[in-house]
């Protein structure tokens, strides 16, 4: 097939970087575009939406407690038992879920990439120790860590939650990055850099990391929904965000208790959660396809 590749390569004389290539593929993928659009819409709503509403997230509407969705008193998506507007609470929940998951992904990405690149490139004993450390962290039941952290420190603090999620999140990134680095460091262009006298930091920053970005970006977009999920899970268990703050998880927990009498209390936050998760996963998959050079 190399003939065909050479031919096609020769014809495409115009400059095309990997990202521009990927963007062109992404643009043709309608589903991914739709998913990205929806994420943007939900995020925008979560950021600016509450400002336009007559209700705050902790406003109690004594006249309308536990009303079902409809046109009464402009609680279109209904209220919870205490008469708080579900739509606004869900938007606040999205805000917190997105904030925590984005921050946690960023933290885990930075730690994970640094850790993995160093372990993979330096190799030998260092690699052995660094990866055994990861293994040990992996084998600790993370729920215990979170419970211990939340009991040691203030319960429901966002910082603690962030640390707890981030502490677990970077492990997989580190493993993936290490594996990729092991492959990359044997490539001839890295050897060429060594032959020129480029030092280890230079090789890592200039040659290894840029070549990892593709797969890391894909992994990161797939991590965000995991983080949202994890945060919701902790909040669902009551270990996460505390009243009056809400996250999607705690809202779902509240709703689940009224599931039979007032199903909308479960459904409204659940729809937000599910659409966010599905959209992020679709974008992640789409990005992976777009960056995959095999299809070129």
């Amino acid at each position: 097939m190399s003939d065909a590749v050479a031919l096609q390569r020769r014809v495409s004389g115009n400059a095309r970087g990997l990202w521009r290539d990927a963007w062109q593929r992404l643009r043709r993928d309608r589903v991914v575009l739709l998913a990205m659009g929806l994420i943007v819409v939900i995020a925008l709503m979560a950021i600016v939406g509450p400002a336009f509403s007559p209700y705050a997230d902790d406003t109690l509407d004594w006249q309308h407690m536990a009303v079902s969705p409809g046109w009464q008193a402009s609680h279109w998506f209904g209220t919870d038992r205490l008469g708080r507007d579900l739509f606004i609470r869900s938007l606040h929940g999205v805000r917190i879920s997105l904030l925590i998951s984005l921050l946690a992904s960023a933290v885990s990405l930075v730690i994970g990439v640094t850790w993995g690149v160093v372990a993979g490139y330096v190799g030998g004993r260092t690699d052995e120790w660094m990866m055994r450390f990861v293994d040990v962290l992996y084998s600790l039941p993370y729920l215990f860590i979170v419970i211990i952290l939340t009991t040691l420190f203030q319960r429901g603090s966002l910082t603690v939650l962030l640390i707890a999620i981030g502490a677990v999140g970077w492990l997989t990134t580190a493993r993936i990055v290490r594996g990729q680095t092991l492959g990359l460091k044997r490539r001839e262009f890295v050897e060429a850099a060594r032959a020129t006298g480029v030092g280890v930091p230079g090789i890592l920053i200039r040659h290894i990391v840029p070549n990892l970005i593709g797969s890391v970006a894909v992994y990161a977009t797939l991590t965000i929904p995991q983080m949202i999920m994890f945060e919701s899970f902790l909040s669902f268990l009551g270990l996460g965000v505390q009243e009056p703050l809400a996250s999607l998880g705690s809202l779902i927990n509240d709703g689940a208790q009224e599931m039979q009498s007032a199903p909308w209390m479960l459904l409204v936050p659940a729809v937000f959660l599910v659409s966010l998760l599905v959209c992020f996963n679709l974008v992640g998959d789409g990005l992976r396809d777009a960056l995959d050079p095999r299809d070129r």
Partner: protein
Amino acid sequence: MGFVMHSIRATADTEGSVLQLDNLNVTFSTPDGEVAAVRDVSLTVARGECIGVVGESGAGKSQAFLAPMGLLASNARVSGHARFGAVDLIGLRGPALDRVRGARIGMVFQDPMTSLTPHIAVGDQVAEPMVRHLKVSWSEARARALALLQRVQVTDAPRRMMQYPHELSGGMRQRVMIAIALACDPDILIADEPTTALDVTIQAQILALLAQLKRERGMGMVLITHDLGAVAGVADRVAVMRGGRIIELGSVGIVMKTPRHAYTQALLRAMPRMDGPVADDAAGAGKADDAALTISRLSVRFPVYRGWFARSEVLRAVDEVSLDLRAGEALGVVGESGCGKSTLARAALLLLRPSSGQVVWMGRPLEGLSTRELKPLRRELQIVFQDPLASLDPRMTIGEIVAEPLLIHRPELNSQGRAHAVADMLTRVGIAPDWVNRYPHELSGGQCQRIGIARAMILKPRLLVCDEPVSALDVSIQEQVVALLADLKREYGMCILFVSHNLAVVRRLCDRVVVLYLGRMMELARAEELYHRPLHPYTHNLLEAVPIPDPDLQPARLTHVRAGEPPSPLNPPSGCVYRTRCPHAIEICRERVPQWQDAGQSRWVACHRFQELTHQS
């Protein structure tokens, strides 16, 4: 000049024809529009005839024959006809196509590792097409498979039947592929670059095998290759392809002796010859006797891990090699794959730490220096790699790639100074300086290699190590790159350590040549002497295996190709490592390691019997 057709036989004699391509067109639809890969190809393959299809990569030679097999990529569109007996293969699908391919048309691909299924024993892979197409029982098929493997000269065939592809050498794997292709006694065998991934010696063996099979089975054969030497030995007719068209077609003797199309003439000219005079690039240099680089008793050993409880073995990749490279000299290092030549090249630059021995550069021992101490010296010692694309960082523009050494070694330059230096160097290696913003994947292999050379040369090094710099390139591009290296050497006066398995290319550039086998030195001599009067039997074997693009000589050369493959470097033979393949081996060769001895006229050789052997011949 248009299409050139020679001789009477070139016209289609339809009775004897097995495969007849009629106005075959293949186009690919790509994001950048339609690309025509094959245009109006018409060709007839007769029974008992071998057609060599020659051309550079991208000429459409593979596509023209993948099309009738229904093996093209999904974005391909095919028009025209491919008549095989009574059926037209174009447009044939599903079971109807499956009845033909693998049964009546056999196919051999370039890379025998990727075209064999990794998890099935090779015996079963040979037997499977017989079970499928000939409806014989598995035991019957296995019996026939064994006979076939023996026919294609797989050594120790009964044991090999049970082995998996990764346990076989490249040459053995390609034999297995040929056995699979022959399993159902096909009417035609299509071999797509069957020897390109193999060593010279193994190449010759496979070509000799194909020539024998063609004679013995009377089937049609298509040999797709970029190597005119391969065609000269096996083919009856040659089709030269360029840009998807056949531009010259005729009997091998006529096309190769009196090519009429300018492109065919250029291809033949580009082919480095073993029998012509040594190019003047090689002569002259190396008069100064002061050694620039001295390697003494250098060994590189790798531990090979054999599981938890087994003792790890030691692989001696390079074993006690001593060399010196004089200022302004080009020294060739040749040998089969696994002989340690690339390891030697890397150890000479301290990219790999030698296990023992010394490397002295300009009177300064290098092997004890730390990475930091080596850094200023890296400016003088540069390397060009084998795979032109893999050696360039895919995320950097070619401007950034060529400028990187300047960032490290000439920090005093500002960005403008760097841009100037890069532009000058790019112009020097024949790349337009306004390409600085392009990425490596937009360039062809030859252009990528020029970038690799520009990166190595931008610091004006005094030693350039070239590790198989042209092996991945087309023949005509090879010639251009070697010419560029020769020019640069004349201009900058650096010395070159040129590692290659291709003896013809080495001859074109090098003053002296050293031959390695299983990590040890076999022979060292001035180039013209080594090629005209090899002292070591191994050198002799290597030289005989190099194909000559001369249809009068090459078939005869193929008839006395020597069998045998290098033994595992993990378990080298006692005494002289070459004795297991040497036709002149005697008792002493088993018992004692031959001395590295002076054979006069600054020639060195490691052979017990070289004196008597040279007297005989």
